[in-house]
């Protein structure tokens, strides 16, 4: 969508104003949205999900009360510092997940209500991890079968788990 005003740049600021049930809409680029007199409220053009995360990290007691030492923590691999992360809400590289895990894990739990991945495992990360995942999911299945008193099926699943565990040990 292009800007309604200059018709050249992409529209990134969207105004919707409702007065007496009449809806007014305007789609502007950042340039043209500056200094529009009839929109008296100020808009932060960079308001985003990452900003919300950043605010959580800086202002929420769970995250902000963890001592000053953290602020200088830095990822060796990409150079991102903790305060940069806390300001931008974005990580710098895959290694950051390890470096900042003490603060990151509670944040991930907050977002997803979970800290553990249950889904796909890349094939090249090695067969072992796949085995572990498979055993985990079979164990859940086993629990359900026992709960439903389907003992025959449960015995089958139990044997499969034993098999896999043996393979894992080898």
């Amino acid at each position, binding site marked *: *969508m*292009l800007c309604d005003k200059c*018709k050249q740049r*992409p529209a*990134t600021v*969207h105004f*919707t104003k409702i007065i007496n049930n009449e809806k007014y*809409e305007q*789609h502007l680029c950042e340039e043209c949205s500056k200094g529009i007199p009839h929109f008296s409220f100020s808009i932060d053009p960079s308001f985003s*999900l*990452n900003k919300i*995360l950043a605010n959580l990290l800086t202002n929420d007691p769970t995250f902000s009360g963890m001592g000053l030492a953290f602020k200088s923590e830095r990822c060796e*691999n*990409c*150079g*991102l510092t903790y305060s940069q992360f806390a300001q931008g*809400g*974005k*990580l*710098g*590289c*895959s*290694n950051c*997940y*390890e470096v900042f895990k003490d603060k*990151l894990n509670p*944040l*991930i739990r907050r*977002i*997803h*209500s*979970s*800290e*553990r*991945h*249950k*889904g*796909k*495992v*890349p*094939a*090249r*990360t090695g067969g072992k*991890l796949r085995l*572990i995942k498979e055993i985990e999911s079979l164990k859940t299945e086993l629990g359900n079968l026992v709960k439903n008193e389907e003992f025959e099926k449960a015995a089958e699943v139990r044997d499969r788990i034993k098999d896999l565990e043996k393979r894992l040990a080898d």
Partner: protein
Amino acid sequence: MTGRDIFSDASSKWTEGVGPNADIVISSRVRLARNIKNVPFPHMLSEDKEKEILDSVKYIINTPGFREKAGNFNFISLHVLSDLEKWVLVEKHLISPQLAQSQGQKGVIILEDESVSVMINEEDHLRIQCLLPAMQLNEAWTLTNKIDDALEQSLDFAFHKEKGYLTSCPTNVGTGMRASVMLHLPGLVLTRQGYQVFATMTQIGLTVRGMYGEGSEALGNLFQISNQVTQGLTEEEIISHLNSVTLQVVDQERNARQMLHQEAKEQLEDRVWRAYGVLSNARSISSQEAMELLSELRLGIDMKIIQDIDPKVFNKLMVSIQTSFLQKKIQTDMQSPQRDIIRATTIREILSKV
């Protein structure tokens, strides 16, 4: 292929408009966020390093092993595209508005039939996405998964045994998956049930947005529903959750249309025929008005008020009338009044052919 076809042909895989529940579900999409192990995420990368990622993807898609597994992809460096061409790709849903606007070494690879595209150096190193017509979330996941496997043979993806796939933003960590459907819901909007339905969505971990995703307005009664949570669930669980909720919304939409038919038949018919009248006769029309009227026309076709128009024309028109696409077709920089004239002509042409 030079890529010229992509920019001048409005049809894409998803605009085909055939498949289960195609009258309400316009398209189904699955995307996976992937990053290369230990390489800083795009926002931390210099242009040189970004270029290295572009080059390696470009190399991989031309290897026989990849082609055999994943099919024929075309590589496009956004660097060489004009702004207009980038926005055509956005209007065809092949890249995100964010990628079109960003600076640096960005790229995209697109499967021949345009069902799969992989954005390179967007928020994550790779964003693999599959877009199919109608209600085909499972199919979209299968295809995306296959492309992911093929890429993974040559690339070492950042993966943590407990956290899953690692992404630039912690909101995508885990499966890195966002599944979504684009729904045409004029019935719910006309019967004023939309708000209620959408409010429920957020309570069950789903998000509702306009047609171009994040931050966009719902134009032409088109809504995108997607999953919010990416961790703690398997990909299949995410898909099946979205699937079953979507089917319920589809049912609700059908009920609303039934209700309109029973209780407001004349008004509805009048509205539909008026929309058709304006679309097939207007000499100048804005994209917003066009989208709104097209939605009413489509409703009329679906409800058999208008019988002799192929519903598929709706999907094609949705892309053809967008600003950048029209501009590209004419090849000159047009001002808005001119564009509205060309848009009206395009709609009349397409409608007269069906």
